[in-house]
């Protein structure tokens, strides 16, 4: 009997793993909307990456529609989305704030120099604390925040061209037409 129990250990572990995955399917980050959607965006004040000594606060964006893009120089998927973001930022449709997540500022600066900087403002979230407040699951993630400071949409993973055209652009346009609070 003792031997039987010993040899059941792998099965036991696997059972736990299956339970975890079952829960994981429910939690599916791509399918389940963030609990923060339609809730006020968590406020933060963080140092800026490219303007040494200056701070940025979410308060600064009151009354404007803006995007918060979470990225990091170590994130491969960010490279995939980056050129699209650069092209989109050139149109000056909407201010884009970059949240540099758990990153070395030096690496981040070099990354932007090399690949182009789509951000109006980049803030440094070195220990990832703000990322946790915002429910960041992986990088990249992009939030759309309206004039009242409410999160209206969240993209998990790289923004794809069709997503930008079909979801983000119309949404941003609609939000910009909403009256200021």
């Amino acid at each position, binding site marked *: 009997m003792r031997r039987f129990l010993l040899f059941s250990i792998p099965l036991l572990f696997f059972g736990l793993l*299956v339970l975890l995955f079952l829960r994981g399917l429910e*939690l599916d980050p791509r399918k389940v909307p963030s609990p923060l959607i339609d809730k006020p965006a968590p406020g933060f004040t963080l140092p800026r990456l490219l303007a040494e000594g200056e701070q940025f606060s979410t308060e600064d964006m009151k009354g404007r529609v803006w995007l918060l893009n979470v990225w990091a120089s170590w994130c491969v998927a960010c490279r995939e989305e980056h050129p699209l973001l650069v092209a989109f930022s050139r149109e000056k449709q909407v201010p884009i704030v970059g949240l540099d997540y758990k990153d070395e500022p030096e690496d981040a600066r070099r990354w932007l120099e090399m690949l182009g900087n789509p951000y109006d403002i980049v803030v440094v979230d070195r220990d990832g604390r703000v990322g946790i407040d915002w429910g960041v699951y992986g990088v990249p993630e992009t939030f759309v925040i309206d004039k009242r400071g409410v999160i209206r949409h969240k993209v998990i993973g790289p923004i794809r061209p069709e997503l930008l055209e079909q979801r983000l652009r119309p949404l941003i346009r609609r939000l910009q037409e909403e009256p200021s609070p």
Partner: protein
Amino acid sequence: MIPELGHFALILALVVALVQATVPLVGAQLGRVSWMHMARPAVWAQLICMGVAYGALTWAFVTHDFSVRYVAANSNTALPLMYRISAVWGSHEGSLLLWATILSLWSGAVTLFGRGIPLVMLSRVLAVMGMISIGFLLFMLLTSNPFERLLPAPIEGRDLNPLLQDPGMALHPPLLYMGYVGFSVAFAFAIAALIDGRLDAAWARWSRPWTTIAWMFLTLGITLGSWWAYNELGWGGWWFWDPVENASFMPWLVGTALVHSLAVTEKRGAFKAWTVLLAVFSFSLSLLGTFLVRSGVLTSVHAFATDPARGLFILVFLAVVVGGSLMLYAWRAPAVRSHVHFAPISRESALLLNNVLLVVTAASILLGTLYPLIVDALGIGKISVGPPYFNAVFVPLTIPLALVVGVGAMLRWKQDSLARIWKHVRWPAVISVALGTLLPLLFDRWTWQAALGLTLALWVGLTTLEGFRDRLSGRDRPLAAFARIPRGFHGMSLAHAGIAVFIVGIALTTTYSVEKDVRLAPGESWVLGAYEFRMVGVKPVQGPNYDAQRGEIRVFRDGEQVAVLYPEKRIYRVQRNPMTEAAIDPGLGRDLFVALGEPLGEDGAWSVRLYYKPFIRWIWTGGLMMALGGLLAATDRRYRQLARRDARVPAGMAEAAA
């Protein structure tokens, strides 16, 4: 019409797989020879069906049949033929089809080369493979039909993901799948042996070459994947600890452990229950990889389009396959006892250490990969685990592995003495420490990481060579003795030497790479180390399905031109995805790597990233050597003789039966 034919072939394959999974199994249980004989024709019928289905999808791609949804989503009239063929596995549905097709290829191979295996065993093995086949075919037919029509058909397709339009990527998935699915053979053997209740040396001998071949393919697939990442998205990186990379690395680690523990089981009859468990784990981890990539529980670059129904299906499938086999294991394995004793200083002990280290490494990577999910499921918060964790865990666990690899191969079975081993390793130890410490002085600065890496690499290489000397010492005619060394030993030594080469690559690349982002206008140049990079200019060029800006950069060393590099910035016309195509001048001692950034200003200046990567090729060379070693070992004369000798037995039995 042809896509419907493919769809029909898939349904037929499912029906055949049902027969393959049940009739021979029941026959083996009841001892009915005619039922057992159903296995072989069923495998062949299934192989034909899969061939037809696979051919039909390829045909749809080649002829631009955009009325097939999958083709419309992953191809385009401007897509070159080579990528239209590789686009078959460019996305979820088609890659499943590739998986199932490869599974039937492996089953076919077992019927061909497994002639020496007793009919009862073979029937069970093929039945288990049939069950796996059922799972994949059902998955495809129920949730991911590659032949689904899209009516009315669009005029143009949405094109293949530009990242996949690269020769390396065209080959990477088939090789990787050959590895993943190849482990299903070892798995099937393990399950068949568990059903039978007999885990003996013969079982280990049958599954050993199959495991080694599957391991070889997986090694090649991962190596090629790393090389592709370096070319296409790496910006000089070659491994990112991305969940999907981990998904291929975990079965590799456990598979490596399996290859070694099978040796103990075959030669000494020890570790039986453990070896079976490893065989179950290697394939389970391959399946787990499939689940992780396709269910969307983790975010990753490689992630396929996700769908909760698909995720649930794979999870149920995973639960049935892995849960079922672990239940069987819990039931049967306690009865298996190894009555073999070995001393603390023996090859068995060394291989045990190897197994423990490899499995612990795989488990830590599994933990790191799943940690975000665990934390999320427990409601503690949301986190992501990055390369720092993996490097911190992986490096300390692999250093002892490198320390024992060459020595372990030299140890005698059962019992050996430290004094004997010490005689063999003292000189390698002295030389590797001395040279390893001194060699980094040849580079621009001495670092302890490079010294450690080179010492380890020299140690692995020299102890492996010493293994040959050990075999030849005391023989009168060393050349003749060398020729008599079995191929398996050459294979093992080559694979171990591959580790040495791999370590050199990692140690030198990570320490001595130089990178610089610079602004270069036409005519300007930048000096990086011994090399001068001169920008000639950037011109627009047109590819078959993309427009590009192509830079021309000449590289000089000591005033002499050593390379002309053409990095490109491409925009693929359909998906409008900009892609950076780096230009690389490869070399055994160094790579020069140039990538175009963004245009800067009016004077034709661009931001350019320059890399000098010493010895990076050694990383992949090491991987290739390991794979080649696997091939040598798997084709050892022993196994071929075995197959031939045993092949005659069933013929005799058939006569007797008649």
